[in-house]
């Protein structure tokens, strides 16, 4: 019965159930709970029964899996069974159901409907997790390690639920796990004990002292961890979630590497997590030095914090060249990209905007009014030619929107709609950053500069909504100043619309990552959203309000006025690479337009953290490497310091020899040569010589070391002692040579002397207040 451990099994099952509890928030209705509980029961009971029957460990999970499989097939395979045994046909059915479930999960946001496939999938997952937890935590009796699968299960289910979970979800899971750990710890501890009660008067033996030391060490560790757990989250600001959660949970291309992807054509700006798939979406080569984001779709309609693609664009057969709304006098440079390995599903296609020509091979396509290309099926390879609008400052300043010109330009009233609930906040914000009546381009630049300033923090996690904001996510964003591209783009669009500039939402991908072979790779994580603003005569211009850490530099016209006329040999529609006009003047006082400039309101730590969190990966690696090297040298340095200090404190020859000898003992101890506790110096020397297989030379040196320390310690005062530093050093080196490399490295990196030095320093620091207090008290007049 003791081996069966039914209580532990029950605790493990409860912990599993609690860890998977967030699943109930993912699917509706929650019909799957009953079969899951049944499976937990089956796994726990089977485990206990098999453990009771055999002392072997390996059959336990096997039997659990087989029995679990059988029970699941009775639950979900009715009609496909042969004498209550699963058939091949049943597994085929399951495969279909599971692929259905995958489709459900990908196409619905939480809570998704609990279809039969979902119920089957959840049941199987629960069974698997239960077996893993039971095997690690109960059968193999390592409940602490069982925390890992529990945490994984919890994170997977919790990360997929769209909203934050209430704290008790976690408390339940963690609580049962702690109970499991505690119970096994107590059981094991009792196993060591003796049935004879200790008499209070009994002397404390060394074993008791040892146990007490363990207890106090454990207590200190627990207090320190608790303090850390409380203090760390308070001290550390919110780091971007993608460092930890990258790839977990939802993704439009959630099937991972190799799958296809499609960006949702509706965006919910109140949702925290964002496309996080590491899967490659496409790769391309560009003939231009600088590359532009690839647009996939354009959204115009926004309400209640959600962008939808309701406007039906009349399809045309070809793309406009020059693009819609661009008048004749504007400088355009043409660039071309060739996409290979395209995994974007039709009817979407990633292309830089505005595209003027497309070659999709044999795939038929049409163009929408807003410039998107809609292929019939997915082309593997395609080529897009697109233009970059390079307006002069004069053209920009002249491009004032007026209602008359709007009508025949393809711009609709939808491009100017604003949610009424957010209007007051928008107007208040705008009033702060740009006076009414400024030119359209100045307004746009001011908005972009404001959003790119350090007041705003790029984060995949949204701040907690303030109830006073009427649950309007845009208002909430403007207040909390924390969000990702969709919030930034939405804010810019709404502010621009508020000032009468037509604006729309473009979604697509950032240029991606430059590979060594000069091609660019775009991954699911590169999904991005940005605003496009309408300027008469210039068409739809891309702006970039998302902070540069994520989005890179903003287009040149959006940041600073440029000189009249192109300054380079750029020509219209050359088909070659573009040249970037260099700004010839830049107003000094125009700080807010500068994306790099920091608004004075941003707090210093926020700036610092912003700077740190935007460091490139290699810089992080370098910093970690340098810190690691420095950190690993701390103990050796402390050890050298300690030995030096001991030598300096020695006032006569004997004391010097003693200090050397003590250092010698600790050094060979670090190397794993440990003479018995009661060894005399002579016995120690003999032990070292034998256990390290010293060569005759070294044996002689060892003997001289021992002779010296014996003289130092025991000879009558006045005897000449001699120096043992040099032979000692040589012996230590020889002993090290006989040890494995890892042992030597460990002895170097983690010397006892270093540890004691650090320990003393820490204890001294901890004790300092008490000593200071004691000194104060002693100073007080009596």
């Amino acid at each position: 019965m003791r081996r069966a451990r039914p209580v532990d099994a029950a605790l493990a099952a409860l912990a599993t159930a609690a860890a998977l509890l967030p699943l109930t928030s993912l699917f509706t209705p929650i019909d799957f709970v009953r079969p899951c509980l049944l499976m937990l029961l089956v796994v726990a009971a089977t485990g206990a029964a098999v453990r009771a029957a055999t002392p072997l460990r390996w059959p336990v999970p096997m039997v659990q899996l087989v029995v679990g499989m059988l029970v699941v097939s009775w639950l979900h395979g009715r009609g496909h069974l042969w004498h209550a045994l699963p058939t091949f046909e049943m597994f085929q059915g399951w495969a279909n159901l599971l692929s259905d479930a995958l489709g459900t999960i990908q196409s619905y946001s939480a809570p998704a409907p609990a279809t039969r496939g979902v119920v089957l999938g959840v049941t199987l997952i629960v069974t698997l997790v239960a077996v893993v937890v039971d095997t690690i935590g109960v059968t193999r009796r390592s409940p602490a390690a069982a925390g890992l699968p529990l945490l994984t299960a919890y994170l997977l289910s919790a990360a997929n639920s769209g909203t934050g979970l209430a704290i008790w979800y976690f408390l339940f899971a963690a609580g049962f796990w702690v109970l499991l750990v505690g119970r096994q710890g107590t059981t094991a501890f009792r196993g060591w004990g003796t049935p004879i009660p200790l008499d209070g008067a009994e002397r404390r033996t060394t074993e008791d002292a040892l146990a007490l030391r363990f207890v106090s060490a454990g207590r200190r560790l627990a207090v320190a961890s608790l303090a850390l757990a409380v203090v760390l989250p308070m001290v550390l600001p919110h780091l971007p979630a993608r460092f930890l959660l990258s790839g977990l949970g939802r993704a439009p291309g959630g099937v991972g590497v190799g799958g296809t992807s499609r960006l949702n054509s509706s965006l919910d700006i109140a949702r925290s997590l964002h496309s996080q798939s590491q899967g490659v979406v496409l790769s391309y080569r560009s003939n231009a030095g600088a590359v532009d984001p690839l647009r996939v779709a354009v959204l115009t309609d926004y309400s209640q914090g959600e962008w939808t693609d309701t406007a039906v664009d009349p399809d045309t057969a070809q793309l406009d060249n020059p693009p819609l709304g661009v008048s004749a006098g504007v400088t355009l440079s043409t660039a071309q990209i060739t996409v290979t390995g395209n995994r974007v599903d039709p009817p979407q296609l990633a292309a830089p905007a505005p595209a003027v020509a497309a070659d999709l091979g044999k795939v038929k396509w049409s163009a929408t009014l807003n410039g998107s290309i809609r292929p019939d099926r997915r082309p593997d390879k395609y080529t897009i030619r697109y233009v970059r609008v390079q307006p002069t400052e004069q053209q920009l300043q002249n491009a004032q929107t007026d209602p008359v010109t709007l009508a025949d330009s393809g711009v609709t009233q939808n491009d100017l709609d604003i949610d009424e609930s957010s209007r007051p906040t928008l107007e208040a914000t705008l009033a702060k950053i740009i006076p009414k009546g400024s030119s359209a381009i100045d307004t746009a630049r001011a908005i972009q500069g404001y959003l790119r300033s350090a007041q705003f923090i790029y984060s995949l996690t949204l701040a907690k909504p303030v109830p006073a904001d009427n649950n309007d996510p845009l208002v909430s964003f403007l207040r909390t100043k924390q969000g990702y591209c969709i919030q930034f783009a939405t804010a810019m669009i709404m502010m621009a619309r508020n000032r009468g500039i037509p604006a729309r939402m473009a979604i697509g991908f950032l240029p991606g990552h430059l590979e060594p072979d000069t091609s660019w790779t775009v991954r699911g994580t590169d999904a991005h959203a940005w605003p496009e603003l309408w300027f008469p005569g210039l068409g739809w211009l891309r702006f970039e309000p998302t902070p540069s850490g994520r989005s890179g530099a903003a287009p040149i016209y959006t940041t600073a006025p440029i000189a009249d006329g192109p300054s380079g040999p750029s020509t219209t529609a050359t088909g070659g690479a573009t040249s970037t006009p260099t700004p010839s003047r830049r107003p000094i006082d125009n700080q807010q337009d500068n994306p790099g400039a920091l608004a004075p309101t941003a707090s210093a730590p926020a700036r610092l953290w912003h700077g740190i969190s935007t460091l490139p990966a290699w810089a992080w690696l370098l910093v970690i490497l340098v810190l690691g090297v420095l950190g690993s040298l701390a103990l050796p340095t402390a050890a050298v310091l300690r030995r030096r200090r001991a030598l300096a404190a020695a006032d006569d020859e004997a004391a010097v020899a003693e200090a050397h000898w003590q250092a010698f003992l600790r050094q060979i101890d670090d190397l794993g040569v440990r003479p018995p506790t009661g060894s005399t110096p002579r016995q120690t020397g003999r032990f070292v010589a034998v256990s390290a297989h010293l060569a005759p030379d070294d044996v002689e040196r060892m003997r001289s070391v021992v002779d010296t320390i014996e003289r130092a310690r025991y000879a009558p005062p006045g005897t000449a002692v001699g120096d043992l530093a040099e032979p000692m050093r040589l012996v230590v080196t020889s002993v090290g040579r006989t040890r494995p490399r890892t042992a030597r490295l460990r002895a170097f990196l983690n010397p006892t002397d270093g540890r004691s030095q650090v320990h003393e320093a820490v204890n001294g620091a901890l004790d300092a207040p008490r000593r200071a207090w004691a000194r104060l008290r002693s100073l007080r007049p009596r």
Partner: protein
Amino acid sequence: MDPFEQQIRGTTFDAGDTRGEPPRVPNLDEVLEVAARLAGAMNSVIEGKKGVVRIAITVLLAEGHLLVEDVPGVGKTMLAKTLARSIDCSVRRIQFTPDLLPSDITGVSVYNQDIRSFEFRPGAIFANVVVGDEINRASPKTQSALLESMEEGQVTVDGTTYQLQHPFIVMATQNPIEMEGTYPLPEAQRDRFMARISMGYPAGHSEVDLLLHHGGRSPLDDLRPVTDAATISGLIHAVRTVHASSSIAQYIVDLASATRESPALRLGASPRAALHLLRASRAHAALAGRDHVLPDDVQAMVVPVLAHRLHPTGETQMARRSTSDVLTDLLQRVRVPAPRS
């Protein structure tokens, strides 16, 4: 090679050289030399028992008394007699029997008709070397008479105190206490012996030699003294000059207190035991040719000096662990103290 052993090898058996030398405090080299001669002489009689002989000489030089304990017939008395005879000094042998009286040992005042007064007749104790054979066969009363004189170095009879000779060593043999017809020595009296040694059976080849060579006449008959009482007295003084540092004293105290705290022992080592251990260690160091004591000397003497004074608990006895085993364990556990700076 141990200097002592070297010295033994280089010594030719030559009796009578030291006779007539003036008493003085010799230096430690001389200690080594004389002791080696002594050991050489004894080894020629007691074959294959170098360790036992060495401890016996150590005890002699440390001015202690020796208890030889073993089953009958392994040469206990032979050892005592050999040592006594190697030294040119007064030797008395007492055969302890249950009817032996204290006055037989200490002496008695008898009335002399000629001078009409009491006259002191010295007992067997008045000698340099006293061999007490089968000491645990005597009644406790008689035992204590011997042991008192051992500690004090003097005897008081009828109110008059008589000094014993110097050097004075009692070498007592006893059978293990389980043997029939014995009165076990009380703890207090065992404590007076500096060391207890056990002869043990001779090794195989030694026993064959013993049968072949000692079949006819006793080798003891050929033994002539190699030194005299005055020299030994000087050596004893010389051994007292061996330096014992404070950390050695600390080590001995640590060991003693470890025996007092050990859960395996009912009775630990007394301060007198610690004192004896230090003296024995000094002699051991001198025999090794050193002018200072090492912890190794202490360790070598711990079992002979302490084992017979300790009393194991019932549990230890049940586990068939002797006090020597307990002491060996303690030696492994008690740290050799570093000098305090």
